[in-house]
């Protein structure tokens, strides 16, 4: 499943490549969860686990929302991509701010593990994904499968 151009070449048709990348990253985050939970448990017990889990959810939702906004804009018109990217940046910063500030005073929230997990998970998932994307300019959803077939 690849995206194609419409007849005027001013928008994409079919599945959005950005959404495919984001969903790929969301799947990979499932592999990170045990490590993150262990990290949270070591730092802060149950509250630490809840805090780092919340941070992982924020990171994944942030990626998926960013991809959805950009992908949807590209399906409408390329000119909209600029607005979707910059507007989406401001919107998502506001949402992350709201999501953290809303729970910051709760008893189960530990700010330090939450903050560390936000940065490390965000960068970790990106580096993991870009390994596949930079390996070739093929659509990233295909690359891991090709790799696994090569191993077996």
């Amino acid at each position, binding site marked *: 499943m690849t995206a194609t*151009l419409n007849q005027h070449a001013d928008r994409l048709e079919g599945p959005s490549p950005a959404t495919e990348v984001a969903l790929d990253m969301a799947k990979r985050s499932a592999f990170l969860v045990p490590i993150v939970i262990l990290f949270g448990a070591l730092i802060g017990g149950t509250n630490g686990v809840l805090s780092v889990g919340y941070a992982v959810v924020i990171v994944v939702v942030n990626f998926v929302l960013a*991809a959805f906004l950009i*992908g949807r804009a590209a399906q409408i018109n*390329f*000119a909209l991509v600029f607005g979707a990217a910059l507007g989406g940046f401001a919107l*998502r910063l506001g949402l*992350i701010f709201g999501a953290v500030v809303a729970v910051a005073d709760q008893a189960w929230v530990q700010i330090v593990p939450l*903050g560390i997990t*936000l940065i490390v998970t965000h960068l970790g998932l990106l580096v993991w994904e*870009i390994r596949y994307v930079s390996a070739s300019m093929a659509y990233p959803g295909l690359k891991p499968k090709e790799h696994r077939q090569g191993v077996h």
Partner: protein
Amino acid sequence: MSAISTAIELAVEATPAEQKNAAAASSAGFAYGLAAIGPGIGIGYLVGQSVQAMARQPEAAGQVQTTMFLGIAFVEALALIGFVVFILLKFA
């Protein structure tokens, strides 16, 4: 003017702990605000170049969008670091 003089009076009367809290809150706000400026410029430049690339070579739009999305996410990590500094200063 009266608001400024009231703020100055409050600052003079504040205890050292209150002054420290006020300094931490304003520093946190500055950290978050300043940290968002650089990524904003970076994303603007990145998306501008990507839109130009898609206009020049529409058949590569899918690949350009993939690269653009990852670039945006990397640049956004800088803003996220600023945000984490903000929450550490404000809540930790």
